[in-house]
């Protein structure tokens, strides 16, 4: 692996995950925006901007003077959304999303308890190591959700996402993580209604 760090790539990932997880896809830039596409993209800004405005209003308790900071931030966010590569809209399936949220909450608690117990155990049971996982999820939001979710599952931390390959750091290399990862992947596929081609293979 001789890939050099790509700051632009990192910034894009960060922005994507914090602004609107399901609407933007960090795919490689696809040339200049066509005229007809621009109107669609401006229309596509309405929902994110309204959402961000609502969040800002909630955070500031609906105070008008807080917009001194909120308005410029909102303008920058809208500009970034326009500058980003063309987003792909994902439809979220409501029932799998709710099931995932509940399952994920339980897993995140398990993960925190697991790492807390390892931290305070006198013998500190750690067998750290890296492993690679080839994901069958489509590019964009599903893979970002996967990378972020892996970090909060028991004993796993996403260390690198490159195309189909997700490098995962594990606290206990002796444990079998394949089943948990496969389970997580199929749950995420259900949220985005994305079919998984065949059985995923660990790389």
């Amino acid at each position, binding site marked *: 692996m001789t*890939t050099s*760090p790509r700051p632009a790539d990192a910034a894009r990932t960060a922005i994507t995950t914090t602004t609107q997880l399901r609407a933007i896809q960090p795919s490689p830039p696809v040339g200049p925006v066509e005229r007809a596409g621009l109107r669609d993209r401006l229309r596509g800004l309405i929902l994110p901007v309204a959402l961000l405005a609502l969040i800002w209003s909630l955070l500031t308790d609906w105070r008008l003077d807080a917009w001194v900071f909120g308005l410029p931030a909102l303008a920058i966010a809208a500009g970034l959304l326009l500058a980003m590569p063309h987003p792909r809209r994902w439809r979220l399936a409501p029932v799998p999303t709710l099931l995932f949220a509940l399952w994920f909450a339980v897993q995140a608690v398990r993960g925190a308890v697991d*790492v*807390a117990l390892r*931290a*305070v155990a006198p013998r*500190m049971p750690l067998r750290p190591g890296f492993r690679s996982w080839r994901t069958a999820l489509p590019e964009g939001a599903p893979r970002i959700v996967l990378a972020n979710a892996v970090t909060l599952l028991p004993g796993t931390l996403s*260390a690198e*996402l490159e195309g189909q390959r997700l490098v995962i*750091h594990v606290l206990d290399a002796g444990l079998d993580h394949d089943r948990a990862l496969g389970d997580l992947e199929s749950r995420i596929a259900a949220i985005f209604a994305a079919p998984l081609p065949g059985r995923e293979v660990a790389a």
Partner: protein
Amino acid sequence: MISMVAMVLIGAGALFFLAGTIGLLRFPDLHCQLHALTKADGLGLTLIGLGAALLAGSVGDIARIALICAFAALSGATCGHLIARHARRGDAEGRDV
């Protein structure tokens, strides 16, 4: 009664922060330390947020606490990933040179 439950939640949250910090100090390398910070501290903040929400006076306060917890969880996982990636790539470059 409600304030008792809130105290228990906040106390549990503080314990997770403590465990996360112990992990940060004891774990041998950066990646293991990231496990402790992202997971244990994330749950710690959520528990403290739940406790604070129980004590909160208004719906606006509760909404703000929920937003803060959600954003902290999201940015924690993302930052953990970015730090881990940077460390890995730094290692790889060091070996190549």
